[in-house]
């Protein structure tokens, strides 16, 4: 997972006006917007800029952060648990033979 461009500890050092400008530019996504993009975030489908916006929102918003954490664990379990059945060996032979006939 890649690091966001800004860390919360850097923000604390900013003067008040810049602080406000920073938030207006980067952090103005709502919890609803974050929720909408949850799966794009988990699937690695966000552009770097959008990824940073979500990341920052998660650093600032405890509610969303806790939900995302839970969703991430759940997502991993679903991926792991749906892994594959074995291919019946006879199927491969059957298909190869059929191709033989087609030749």
């Amino acid at each position, binding site marked *: 997972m890649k690091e966001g461009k800004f860390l919360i500890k850097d923000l604390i050092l900013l003067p008040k006006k810049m602080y406000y400008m920073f938030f207006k530019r980067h952090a103005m996504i709502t919890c609803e917007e974050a929720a*909408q993009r*949850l799966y794009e975030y988990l699937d690695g489908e966000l552009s770097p800029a959008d990824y940073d916006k979500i990341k920052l929102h998660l650093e600032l918003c405890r509610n969303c952060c806790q*939900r995302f954490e*839970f969703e991430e664990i*759940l997502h991993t*379990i*679903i*991926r792991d648990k*749906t892994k594959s059945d*074995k291919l019946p060996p006879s199927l491969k032979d059957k298909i190869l033979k059929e191709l033989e006939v087609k030749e």
Partner: protein
Amino acid sequence: MNIRRVVAEHNKDRKREFEETTIPYMNSLYNAALRMARERAEAEGIVQDTYLLAYKNFNKFQRGTNCKAWLFKILRNVFINRYRKNIKSPDTVQYEEVENYYLYNQLTSHQDSSYIDFLKEPGRLEEFIGEDVNSALQGLPDEFKEVVILSDIEGFTYEEISHIIGSPIGTVKSRLNRARRFLQKKLWDYAVKKGLVKR
């Protein structure tokens, strides 16, 4: 050199190339077919048809492009034709809407407040729902199940899925979102049925 021999050699090369390119995906195709068709014999038939069709159309496949996605697109068509059913567009069928964070919300509103933190400990959530993931997936309507299979099991990107199912990326996104919330509802229902949680 006789012409029949030249043709035979050419066919042999073509067949070898086909096998080298497509056989590595047979397991994935079989698994997807099994999840969609539910029965082993059916799944085998679907994969067989997919390979025959792919072989017939191999000259249309562009070398170096995404072979796995190409095969999955064929598999999907075989599945649809075999059952003469359309994988309906969920936009035209009414499904109940499941809210965001469904499982999280159920767990936090019906259980003691510390329960969610307990479940976040390593391995806990897996103990809690792990067993039911496959049955929950099996219970989804086809149009939701297929996008979950393509994304979560096969690891296709949204763009690849969009190509396979022939719908825009926006549709893929919203279908995946709805499918996963639907899946969470099923997981919650299982947990309730098993008496793992208070309702």
